[in-house]
């Protein structure tokens, strides 16, 4: 039996990688993938606790997160395509029309 702390450390590492990717990358798609990574890091900790504590609520929560992530992916990708069409770039620093 793998101890829960292993899962949690892995989850934390994945989450930090997601955060780092989000903060450091400029490409919108990469940022988007970083967000997915963070979500899945959270999912991992959910299922880890769920197994440890013998409760189903953690698993159910993971399904919710997945559903939301799927919806988000659909909407987010559509936005990204639209941004690319109008601005011919995926560099997030160039998409700053609202800035004064």
């Amino acid at each position: 039996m793998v101890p829960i702390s292993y899962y949690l450390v892995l989850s934390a590492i994945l989450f930090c990688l997601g955060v780092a990717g989000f903060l450091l990358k400029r490409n919108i798609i990469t940022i988007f993938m970083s967000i997915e990574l963070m979500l899945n890091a959270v999912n991992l900790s959910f299922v880890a606790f769920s197994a440890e504590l013998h409760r189903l609520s953690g698993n159910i929560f993971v399904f919710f997160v997945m559903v939301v992530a799927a919806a988000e992916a659909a909407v987010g990708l559509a936005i990204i395509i639209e941004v690319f069409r109008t601005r011919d770039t995926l560099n997030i620093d160039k998409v700053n029309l609202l800035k004064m």
Partner: protein
Amino acid sequence: MNENLHLWLIPVLPLVGAAINGLFGRRFPQRVVNAVALAFPGAALVQALWIASQFGSLQTIPHIEVLGRWIQAGSFTVNFGYQLDQLSMIMLLVVTGVGFLIHIYSVGYMAHEGGYYRFFAYLNLFMFFMLTLILANNYLLMFVGWEGVGLASYLLIGFYFLKDSAANAGKKAFIVNRIGDFGFLIAMFLIMRETGTLNYLTVFSHIGRLPVDMHWGTLTITALLLMLGAAGKSAQIPLYVWLPDAMEGPTPVSALIHAATMVTAGVYMVARSNVIFNHAPHALMVVAIVGCATAMFAATIGITQTDIKRVLAYSTVSQLGYMFLACGVGAYAAGIFHLMTHAFFKALLFLAAGSVIHALSGEQDMRHMGGLRKLIPWTFGTMTVATIAIAGIPPLAGFFSKDEILWQTFSSKAFSSVAGSELNIVLWLLGIITAFMTSFYMFRLWFMTFFGERRESASPSHDPAHAASHGHGDDHDPSQDHAHAHGVHESPWSMLAPLVILAVLATIGGWVGIPHALGGSNHFESFMRPVFEHEAAAPGAHNTPNAEAPNPAQAGTAEPHGDTGTELALTGVSVLTALGGFGLAYLFYYKRRELPDRIAASMHGLYQTVLNKYYVDEIYNAIIVRPLMWFSTKVLWRTVDVSMIDGTVNHVAADTRGISNQTRRMQSGNVRSYAAWVAAGAAAVLAFMIWAGVKGVWTR
């Protein structure tokens, strides 16, 4: 309360006329404006006459009609109530009668003016407020009318508002009146504190039971504050300065508001408050002195003025002084009598002067008139009647009222408790001298205008350059150039008819008050007696048994029987004085025209002082207006308003902007920096929770 006279209709009728003309008059043809403007005051006059015919059969006088409650606060109540007694009956007839005649006159006079409908809307509005003022049964409703006539006066003085001098004159009148109104308001508060109500009847019966105030107590202060209000409205020293400037308004306005009706509101108010004044002999004395001083002072200025309307304006101030003198010596009935006759002859004088100005296409300077008697005979005739009437030559109206005032001044004991009879003699002497000057300046005006040869001005009178050449701001009114530049012409009948009617009134108006000494029966005073006899015996009550009242409160005007000889002698003196004034004017302005100039030259300094109205306007400017302006500009505007009030607001706004300027840098528009803030926030929360877990905050 007996039969219903529908008193409220009298003021409301002109208000309806004002509303119709004011709201829709712009689209009406002139004839409709005329019809509306005349119909409603006319209807008010008809009702006033009807009420006068019913007056004798009224069961209770004062007759009071209450429409409804206006203000209710605790035990204090003010109603929309109207009161009809002898005093308001006389005022009602004067205001509606003279007012209606002047409306007719205005139709002719204003025919060629712009803003025709506006003029009549204001005029009707004035009638509404004036009638409210005289019919009210409490001080507060009177004050509504009081302020309202001030408003109408302001609007009408500034009728030619494109002209600076007219707009300024309107402002001056309004502001000077505010000073008086302040006194009136404080007086009302004192009355409320003293009696708990403002209803005439309750106030007077309450104060009537109080002892006479022989010191400078509340009653005296109240009376003096009332007098301050009256001095503002009725142009007495020290607040008379607005009235001569008010001549910037159209001439019918000068006749109606600034001669016949509104300016007499102060006299009416003092007469109405006679109970308060009778209980404050000091105040009575002040009223008499102020009135007498004003009469004298204004008359001397009147002698030197050359603008026909200004002479009449100072004459009005002077005659109002007479009325206050009458009130001050407790002869309220004589004051109201003079108010009535003055309304007739002064309205007539102004209207006739307007007719002269009309005939000369806007010329107002008497030095450029002369020889008009053949050219405008009707105006000349009516003006002659008015001049004789105001000069006090029998048997015209002015003689009886003025003589009555002088006799009462001589014989009154109203303030004998606080001043010796020397004061009466002095006041009487000044009154006689004033009467002499009145006669002189009026005949001077008469001779200069109608006799001699025509003295045309060098340039045509409607030339603006000429108007500007007159130094003292009374140059003629450009908007009164009646467009027709052809020669001198008599006025239309709509203007002459009121002149003739007023001339008849100015002739016979005094006959209702022929004193007993002259074989009359003085109907007027016996008619007015009920209003003024609460405490003091009615003035001139020669044949009443209570004439010997020794009590100082009742000393009022009681006069012994045996003085008929003295009265006759004094009458003789005043007639001689009036004739003397005529003679001197005849000598100076008809026989030997060069004399006035020589005398003026020999007394240069004095003449200049009087010609410039004793520099009172300049003195007021220097000691009141300028410091006030300085204080307003430097302290109130620049310091309080700009630096403190605006400063606070502006600083708050500026600081907010400064802080925003700093914090807006957080909103860089860089998505990754936002994310960094989120991450940092999350890390901070996490760190806090770990710290809290370690410290055991949650498990406490």
